[in-house]
């Protein structure tokens, strides 16, 4: 990752960066990036998070992209709480690509990993408190009084003799003051917004059609592009005949870029229609040999390699050898597409000495870097403007489409909106990796587990995106949820990184979804082999894990575990730790013929302090339903290097009639917040599979679930 922007220095701004990494002050932010609207009245920025207009308009920046998960509300809430402004009256902007907005937990300006609130929790409250302190100090200086005698509320500083100054009146003076380092944050009991189920700030614009997504970007003189990419990912155009396409109405240009051939027209529909009649010869590259059966066979073969150990406790071989009963099982999961509702798109405007890229991305820093590279300009000449994202789920951490849009705009000398079709999106994804898991477990004579061995073979996303993070054969984003801290004396977990030849990307809950399915299904297998109730079997292993124990008990109790379910329904249970959150789920299913129906999911979670319980609940509902799609339907297959699924008819997702009742039980806590956008996605898999076992006696070790 490269640093972004130290451009023409029109304005020095003090910007606080990460709390964990120490305060970074005096960061230069390019004025153009921070004030996109030229008509704005004079604005001052006490720090990188707050803009205060002379007209008292207060803008809070969100350093994270809004892709549904609520950061557009949650991040400003943290600032506003300490800044003492009315949350309902502020304006929110998504931050430009700049150093203060780097995510300290991920090392880049990335929205992902369920980190936004956890990472921003201290940093943003501190930034709000610092800005408020500076505003109060500026007012106090103006009045010649002691700052400690003044207080602030709703954007107004009040002095000891009844003086009043709006933030707008003192903002300019405040932004010249030193950033205080000794500010105190509010106690939880004094919170006005944090911890309250505040309504989302983006809802009004999302119920009346005014929210701006990448699809909706319109720049003056903008043209529209549709890009033909090789049907085999990685293939390149060799030659093309654009005679027919160029003769079609509205077509302005046909240009070859690195990834394919683009038709540029005065409307997207015309560009797309003309693209369909391009005759292109492709060099399909090595990918054309890929087939699903071959990929699975190679994955299983690779599993025989010794793995890199990432958890070791006791002596697993001795434990297994001495066990009264031994259980072995293999699990396999497929590639998945992200299939966000908004098909991939981005708009680029490349000029001689500037490049604007405008659209939905989860990774502003990389978008800027890729745009710089594709345009041949310097990173500081690139401006990234982030719209709302019509879903991300990890797909928009990759920015292949940014480079494409920039190449096209540069080639035609005009602003261009590149929009993929749904088919492009489905067939040119960075897919959730396939995986193969071999588990062995041993039970003693009383049916207690004494040893468990977990051997994972799967492609590594991180090896491509952040290779420095992969060391000694271990990709930390492959080993999540692979070894719950159950009290089992002998444990070994190993990973083999195996590149299947198909490109892979981060997908909501990343490896949790792979490993939790295998691990928690296998725990159920062990319970069955021991002749024990799956809940009681797990509970007995959690005496040293109070948080996990508590959520497991909550889910069991609230779901009525141990009491008979409604006729024809069966329950399954699962437990997981992910993103710092402890979670248990109980799924209630029925089976008719070969169809599995999930009626109800009871989820219990401990995620520490809930900054906005309303958004937490949204995320729980969302993550479970998203995960359920992978449990019931999701599978990407390859034939002759071509992804065989193309749209929602052959890549099915959960729709309204399949959406279960979701009951949520949340631990009230003032501990530091942890992530909630993803764990539910991973855990619904084993909970449902375990319920299907209860219903049918069939142990389904592959997803999507297919009954024999």
């Amino acid at each position, binding site marked *: 990752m490269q640093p972004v922007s130290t451009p023409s220095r029109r304005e020095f701004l003090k910007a606080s960066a990460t709390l964990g990494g120490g305060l970074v002050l005096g960061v230069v932010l390019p004025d153009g990036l921070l004030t996109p609207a030229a008509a704005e009245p004079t604005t001052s920025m006490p720090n990188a998070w707050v803009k205060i207009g002379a007209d008292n308009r207060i803008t809070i920046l969100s350093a994270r992209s809004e892709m549904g998960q609520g950061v557009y509300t949650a991040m400003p809430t943290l600032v506003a709480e300490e800044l003492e402004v009315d949350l309902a009256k502020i304006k929110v902007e998504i931050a430009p690509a700049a150093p203060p907005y780097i995510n300290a937990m991920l090392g880049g300006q990335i929205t992902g990993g369920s980190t936004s609130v956890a990472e921003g929790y201290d940093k943003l409250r501190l930034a709000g408190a610092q800005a408020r302190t500076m505003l109060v100090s500026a007012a106090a200086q103006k009045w010649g009084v002691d700052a400690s005698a003044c207080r602030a509320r709703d954007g107004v500083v009040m002095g000891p003799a009844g003086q009043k100054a709006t933030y707008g009146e003192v903002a300019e003076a405040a932004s010249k003051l030193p950033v205080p380092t000794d500010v105190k944050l509010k106690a939880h009991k004094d919170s006005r917004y944090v911890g309250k189920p505040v309504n989302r700030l983006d*809802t009004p614009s999302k119920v009346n059609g005014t929210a701006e997504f990448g699809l909706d970007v319109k720049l003056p003189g903008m043209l529209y592009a549709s890009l033909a990419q090789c049907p085999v990912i990685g293939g390149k155009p060799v030659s093309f005949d654009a005679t027919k396409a160029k003769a079609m109405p509205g077509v302005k240009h046909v240009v070859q870029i690195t990834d394919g051939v683009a038709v540029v027209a005065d*409307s997207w*529909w015309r560009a797309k229609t003309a693209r369909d009649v391009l005759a292109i010869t492709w060099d399909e590259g090595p990918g054309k040999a890929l087939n699903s059966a071959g990929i699975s066979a190679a994955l299983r073969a690779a599993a025989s390699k010794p793995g890199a150990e990432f958890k070791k406790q006791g002596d697993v071989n001795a434990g297994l050898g001495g066990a009264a009963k031994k259980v072995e099982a293999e699990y396999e999961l497929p590639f998945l597409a992200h299939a*966000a*509702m908004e098909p991939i798109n981005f708009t680029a405007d490349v000029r001689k000495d500037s490049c604007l890229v405008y659209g939905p991305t989860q990774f502003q820093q990389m978008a800027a870097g890729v745009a710089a590279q594709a345009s041949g300009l310097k990173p500081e000449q690139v401006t990234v403007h982030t719209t709302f994202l019509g*879903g991300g789920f990890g797909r928009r951490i990759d920015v292949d489409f940014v480079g494409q849009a920039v190449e096209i705009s540069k080639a035609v000398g005009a602003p261009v909106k590149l929009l993929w079709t749904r*088919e492009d999106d489905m067939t040119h994804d960075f897919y959730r990796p396939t995986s193969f898991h071999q588990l062995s477990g041993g039970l003693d004579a009383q049916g207690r587990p004494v040893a468990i061995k977990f051997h994972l073979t799967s492609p590594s996303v991180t090896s491509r995106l952040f290779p420095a993070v992969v060391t000694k054969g271990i990709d930390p984003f492959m080993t999540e949820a692979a070894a719950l801290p159950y009290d089992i004396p002998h444990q070994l977990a190993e990973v083999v990184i195996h590149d299947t030849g198909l490109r892979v990307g981060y997908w909501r809950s990343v490896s949790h979804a792979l490993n939790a399915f295998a691990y928690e299904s296998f725990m159920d297998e062990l319970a069955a082999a021991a002749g024990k109730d799956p809940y009681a079997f797990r509970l007995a292993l959690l005496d040293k894990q109070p948080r996990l124990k508590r959520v497991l008990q909550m889910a069991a109790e609230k779901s009525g575990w141990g009491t008979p379910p409604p006729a024809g329904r069966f329950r399954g249970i699962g437990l997981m730790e992910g993103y710092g959150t402890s979670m248990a789920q109980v799924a209630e299913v029925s089976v008719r013929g070969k169809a599995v129906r999930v009626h109800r999911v009871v989820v219990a979670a401990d995620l520490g302090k809930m900054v906005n319980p309303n958004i937490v609940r949204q995320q729980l509902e969302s993550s479970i339903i998203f995960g359920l799609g992978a449990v019931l339907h999701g599978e990407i297959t390859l034939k002759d290097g071509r992804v065989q699924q193309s749209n929602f008819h052959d890549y099915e997702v959960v*729709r309204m009639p399949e*959406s279960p009742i979701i009951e949520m039980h949340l631990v009230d806590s003032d501990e530091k917040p942890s992530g909630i956008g993803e764990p539910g996605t991973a855990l619904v898999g084993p909970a449902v599979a375990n319920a299907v076992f209860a219903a049918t006696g069939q142990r389904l070790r592959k997803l999507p679930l297919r009954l024999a």
Partner: protein
Amino acid sequence: MISLNVNGKDHSVDVDPATPLLWVIHDDLGLSGTKFGCGMALCGACTVHLDGKPVRSCSTPASAAAGKKITTIEAVSATPLGQKVQAAWTSLDVPQCGYCQSGQIMSAIALLTEKPSPTDADIDGAMAGNICRCGTYPRIRAAIHQAAGK
């Protein structure tokens, strides 16, 4: 030239009559609340009303909409039912990423026009064509019931 009546206004647009209505609405008329999701009438993000009936504008030729009243998300607040639905959507905080919500709201209004007090089964039937990848279905269901006054 095709003449279209959108949200009560007449427009003449110079497009191939086979152009899907979606692109005329979104790109030519600048009513960007209607979204492109699949292009095959599989996801419902592009749902608009033609004479009050929900249609997938991505798969409806513009010519098929000529002479009919086209209603998009931008105009739903003009009717009491539209206001009720938007109010329910807002108070229950239905949207997450929000991309599919224009289509969801258009389908919900069509349902409530037909059946002012829909059952859960009615909702399943009427809303099954609208995909939401964020999984806002439980809140959509609740919001439809709320708008129906239940």
